[in-house]
Every structure is written in C-alpha cells, then in structure tokens.
C-alpha cells in the first residue's frame, strides 16, 4: 500500500467516524427531545413552583462595559418568575459608566458584606444594595475577566443554587422555573443544568423581555441561528443523554453553589471558563452519583455578533478555550474512569472539534494539489462531497425542525424555509470563514495568547 493510499483510507475512516458521531448524536438527541416533550405533557403543573422544594437561586451577572444595556438587562432579571431569587451584578472593573448608571437607576447604597467562600478573584472594592429593589446587590471589583467576576459572585452567593448569565442576555420570564426542574427531580445528584441560548437578533426586546421572534437581516446572524440550533438541540441534548455534556454555556447555566465552590470555582485567566468548569466537575466528581445535564425548555436570548471582526474574535476565543481545556484535562482522554466522558466525549472533542479544523484545512490544500497532479479520484471525491453536504443538511434540518416540534414559539413557513436554505448555504463561505477563525484560535493558543478581546454589542432592537 502506498503512502497516498494510506492517507486516502485514513481520511475515509476519519470522515466515517465524524459522520457517524454526528448521526448518532442527532439520533440520540431527537429521541431525548421527543421523550422530554411527552414527559412534560404529563408532568407536574406550574403550581409546583410554590412548593417548598423550590430552592432559592442567586443570579450572577458579570458586567464589563455594559453601560448602554445594563439597566434594561437588570430590570428584566429582577422581574423573573421565581419564588426567591437574589440578583448579583458583578461590575468587573468596567471602564465606562456601568457602575454609575446602576447606582443612579437602582438607587444603590454601600453595605458591609463579606464573602461566604474563599475563591480566587480580584479585589472587591465595594458591595452595594438597591434601596428600591430589595433582592438586587451589585459587587464592584477590579477587572479580572469573566471567570474572575463569576468567582466573586459565587463567593458572595447566599443561596444553594446559582445561575450564571451574561449581563447583556435576556432570560425568558419562566427560564428559572424551567431550568430548576432537573435539580428538583434529583437534588442530590444534579450539579449543573444548561439552558438553551437563542439568538435575539431581529427579534424585539422590551423591558427585558423578547417579543415576537423574527429573523435578522444580517447574514452572519442568520448563519449563527442555525449553528446555535444545531449545537443546542443536537450536540448538547445528545451528549446530555449520556451524562457526558462537556459544556454549559457561560451565557446561561444553573449550578449547585457548594459543588462549584468545592472544586475551586471558575478557572481565572481562562477564556474557556464555562467548558473548563464542566470538564473539571466531571473529573472531580467521578465515582459519585452526579448529573450534569442540558434541557431545551429554559431560554436565554443573546445578541450574536453581526460583524466579521467581532465574530472572528469570538470564534477564535472559543477555539482557544477549547484547546486550553482539552490540554489541561488531557489525562481524561480515553480514561475509562470517567466513563462516557473519558471514553467518548473528550476523544470526540479532540478529534472533531479541536483537530478537525486542521484536517479540514489540509483537505482544502491537498485536494487541488492532488487534482493538479492527477492523483484525485474524481468519482469518489464528488460522492464524498455530496455525502458530506447531504449529511450536514440533514443534521441542520433536524435542528431547525426540532425547534418546530419542541417549542410553542412557531416560526412562519417563510422563516423555516429561510433557515433551511441558510443551512445549505453555510457550506459556501461561512464554513470556511469559521474554519479560518478556529485555526487562528489554535495558533493564538499555541503562541500563548489568552486575551478575551473586545466584544462590541449593538444592543437589542427595541419593541
């Protein structure tokens, strides 16, 4: 067998494994989704939320240079439907007027309050409470990054559960009632629950609530809608079914406060702090009965980047975070002690998420060269190309249609068709762009770049 054949067969095997893992995840996710819908139909009613079983939650919202949107976001958080919730806004050394805006809008006063846990974070300058809204507290601290701000929040959290969210995100009114369900069903085992992060671009937001769902006109935001649907409905739901979820989005996740504090909180200085925490929880909780789960019902709306520059920064940061986490926890790779996490989830993330972009790039470089040199089997190549596009389209269609089956929020036929078309079109340009950013992220990681990068937000469309 020649080297060329070895490379050819290797590529085929890799492609087969990649496609199989996607197909299996999709299948598991769809089954999980259907089961979940049926369970919900015959499950407990909303009156449960007046029950003594409902634990109090501390909402931690780190804010950095959010002066433009912070008042609306915090107002939305204080209006959530939940029996007992403390809103803890952590001003992470903002350079703009975030703190001043909060002080004025919510009539803040300084209070003496000490942290309840020893977690690493930058110096806390002052703690404020609102004279107007009793359950609103603001922590003002020196800048240290998102993980650092979250640690400060956990240190001051009074309640058994905390919900980490982005200050510029908008939670659905019933998001907390929904996300707490897995914890209520198994309080002794549930350590973390992820909710669904949806893109609000194009939809209108008023008084911290998202109104009618519409699609954005910006094509980058459209591509991201399909990406998010795929990532949450298929990826997260699929891995969650086997208790092998490796990431709960930093924009919206519920955690058992003492369990997170016991593992040392978030890793400060990390740009992939959300994934790192989940992998570390898996690592430290092995041997115990625990659940880290994702459910699609609770919804958090976020604003997706609409410029190439900002999206590029976000994607390369995600890739750096992924590389950092996988490298830190490399001993979990293939380790049967961690069950499905070590044997399947981490190897898949290494092979398909971390190294996948390199192999894809190699494909883009080798195929034209092979074609020029006459080594390319055009018949097999064209079949493989069609196969990949078809599988991609099938998976994306599953994700778009999963939303149709799983939610009450119905998109118009035009919107669904647009999303299906976007799922096909993303192969022509958008996929290659994200590939570039992911490789850029890997390169930056190898060069030791751990900066967060400015994330400019446009602000939600007002109703």
């Amino acid at each position, binding site marked *: 067998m020649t080297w060329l054949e070895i490379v050819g067969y290797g590529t085929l095997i890799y492609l087969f494994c990649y496609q199989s893992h996607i197909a299996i995840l999709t299948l598991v996710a769809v089954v999980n989704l259907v089961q979940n819908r049926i369970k919900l139909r015959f499950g407990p009613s909303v009156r449960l939320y007046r*029950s003594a079983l409902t634990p109090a939650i501390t909402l931690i919202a780190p804010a950095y240079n959010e002066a433009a949107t912070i008042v609306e976001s915090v107002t939305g958080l204080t209006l959530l439907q939940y029996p007992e919730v403390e809103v803890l806004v952590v001003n992470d050394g903002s350079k703009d007027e975030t703190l001043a805006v909060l002080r004025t809008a919510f009539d803040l006063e300084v209070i003496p309050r*000490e942290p309840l846990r020893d977690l690493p974070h930058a110096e806390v300058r002052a703690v404020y409470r609102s004279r107007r809204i009793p359950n609103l507290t603001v922590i003002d601290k020196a800048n240290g990054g998102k993980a650092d701000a979250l640690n400060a929040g956990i240190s001051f959290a009074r309640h058994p559960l905390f919900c980490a969210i982005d200050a510029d995100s908008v939670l659905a009114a019933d998001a907390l009632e929904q996300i707490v369900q897995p914890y209520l069903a198994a309080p002794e085992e549930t350590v973390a629950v992820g909710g669904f992060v949806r893109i609000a671009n194009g939809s209108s937001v008023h008084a911290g609530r998202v109104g009618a769902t519409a699609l954005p006109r910006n094509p980058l935001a459209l591509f991201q809608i399909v990406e998010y649907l795929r990532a949450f409905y298929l990826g997260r739901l699929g891995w969650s079914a086997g208790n092998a979820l490796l990431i709960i989005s930093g924009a919206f996740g519920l955690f058992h406060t003492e369990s997170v504090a016991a593992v040392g909180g978030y890793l400060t200085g990390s740009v992939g702090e959300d994934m790192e925490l989940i992998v570390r929880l898996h690592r430290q909780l092995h041997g115990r009965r625990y659940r880290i789960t994702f459910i699609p019902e609770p919804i958090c709306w976020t604003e997706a980047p609409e410029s190439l520059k900002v999206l590029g920064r976000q994607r390369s940061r995600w890739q750096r975070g992924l590389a950092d986490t996988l490298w830190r926890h490399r001993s979990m790779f293939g380790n049967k002690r961690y069950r499905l996490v070590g044997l399947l989830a981490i190897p898949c993330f290494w092979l398909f998420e971390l190294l996948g972009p390199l192999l894809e790039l190699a494909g883009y470089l080798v195929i034209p060269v092979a074609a020029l040199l006459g080594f390319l089997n055009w018949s097999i190549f064209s079949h493989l190309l069609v196969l990949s596009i078809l599988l991609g389209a099938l998976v994306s269609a599953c994700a778009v249609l999963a939303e149709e089956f799983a939610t009450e929020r119905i998109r118009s036929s035009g919107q669904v068709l647009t999303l299906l078309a976007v799922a096909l079109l993303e192969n022509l340009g958008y996929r290659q762009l994200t590939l570039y950013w992911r490789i850029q992220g890997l390169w930056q990681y190898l060069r030791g770049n751990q900066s967060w990068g400015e994330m400019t937000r446009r602000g939600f469309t007002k109703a």
Partner: protein
Amino acid sequence: MMIDEGPHLLLAGELLLAALLGLLLLIALIHRLWRQASSRRRAAVAALDEESIAAFAAGEIARDRLIAQLKGRLRPQHEALLLGYAAQVAGERSADFSALFAALGLVERQYKRLRSPFWWRRAGGARALGQMGDGAAVPLLVGRLADPNPAVGFAAARALIDLGRADLLASRLAEQALQFGPLHLADLVAGTGDELTEGLLQLVAHPSPSVRQTACELLGQLRSTAAVPLLGDRLRHDTLPVQSAAARAAGAIGAPELVDPLTAALGGAPSLQRAAAEALGRIGDPSAIPALAALLQSDQRTVVDAGARALLALGADGRRAIEEAVAAPLAKVAAALLPVGEGSR
C-alpha cells in the same frame, strides 16, 4: 476491489441521506399542515359552538339543547373547550357538566383510552376522567395508580384529587412514593393542600432516603404540627440530606419542641449546621443563643453567616452575642450583618 465498489457504496449512502432528508421535510410539512388545520378547526369550533358552551356554563341554556347541538359532530377541539369551561365552574354546574360529558359519550371515550396499550393515551384518559368529574371512574383510577408507567399513575392520582378522593391517594402514598419521585409528590401536595398529610406522615419513615427527604420538606410546607415528633426522630438519626430537610421543616413549622434536636444538629456537617441555624432563628427560642454563638467560631464562612443571621432573628440578645464574638476567626462575616440586618438579603 473496495475502491471499485466505493462509488456504488457512496451513491447508496447519498440516496439514503437524500431519502431521509426528503422524509424529514415531508414529516415537517405534514406536521405544519396538521397544526394549521388544527388551529383552523379550533377557531371554527370556537366560532360555532363556544357561545353555546359558555351559555351552558353560565346556566343560561339547558343541557339537552347543547347535547342536541353537539351530538354527532364532536371533535377533539370540542372536548378541550368543554374541559376548559368545566374547570371554571363548581357545584351544581359542575355536576351538569359531568352529565353532559357522559351524554356526549366523552366519558366512555376516556374509559377506552384508559385501556389503551399506549401509556400516553392511558395517562390522557385518566387525566380527562378527573376533569370530567366522573365519580364512577374512581375504582378504575385507583387501579391505574399502580400502572407500570409512572406518568399514568401520576395522572390517575391527579384525577383522584380532581374527584375529591385525595383520601384514597393518601392511604396509598407510601406504595406510590418511589414511583412518583419528589417533583410529582410536590405537585400532588400543591394541588391538595393538607389532605395528603396522613400519607406524608407515613413517608417520613419510608425506606428510601429521598422519599423521606421529600416528605419532610413537604410537611414543612404544610406546616403540619402532627409531623413534629417524626421530624425530631429524623433530625436525630438519618442521612445528612434528610436531617437537613427535617431541620428546614422544623423551622417552617416553627416547632419549639424541636429546639433541643436542632441545637444538637448544630454540631453536624456544615449543610446541617446552616439548616438547623436557620430553623432556630425562625423558631425564635432564646435558649438556642449559646449554641448559635458557638457557630460564629466556625472556619466556614457560610456557617458563620447562617449563625449570625439566626442570632439577629433572636433580637437584642442575639445581636449582643455577635458583638461579643470579635475574637472569632471570621468575626467580620458576622459583624457585616449588624448594621443592615436582614435587609442585606
């Protein structure tokens, strides 16, 4: 050989994926059309018959007239509409609705669903029988409590509550508790008030720790004074989560009889210390002050915080205990609460 056959295999794969994609899109299209048709039908039913159903609910038209109007053209949308109105009425009107459901053959339809091999149909049937107020279904619903699928058992339990037979459920709660789980138990309790207290009291001694824990929490929610001696037992001897749940329940009930076991629990693990301190603060017995003041010496910030909060709730003597604990390693955690008190929450 493999290379020669490769294109054929790949082509087969492509065809399979294309077929699956087509099938998926077809299902989505049918689903959407069905949803739209269902919504249109609902609107049509509402336009044609809702006025009469509302008038019947208000007692303005006779049952026979509505039966004559609906007989022979009943659709699932009618059933949903009727159930919606039935849920809003009480007393005589409710009995009238039950008779209407029976006359329209809707009750018989639920009996058939209850015998279905599909669990979701059985669950739907059980739930509807409760909503239709069919008292004759009680024995069948009691039988369904033990359905192999917990969702059917739960639907039957809710139907029994709807039919005012929570007593039958209470006596069987011990058998059903494991099958239902904490969420469902809490829902049933939320729907009945204190009618399930008797059953919950039995659950406090259930072999499963998670059931005991849930029972303690729910008895606390119901502020059941009958539970106090049992909670004392759980506080003294049980697993940590059950002890903590018993402590929370004792605090919610405000049981002064439990001050001694709660004070003893202050020597337990941090989570129990926190729960017991909070309970002692709620009960408000000053005899707990020395034990709570001892918590201020803890090296756990959350424990000191809980102790200080409980002391603050006990008034001037508790406040003095905090002020005197200046030498404690984490005295500032407690002292931070002094000027603002509970308001800092």
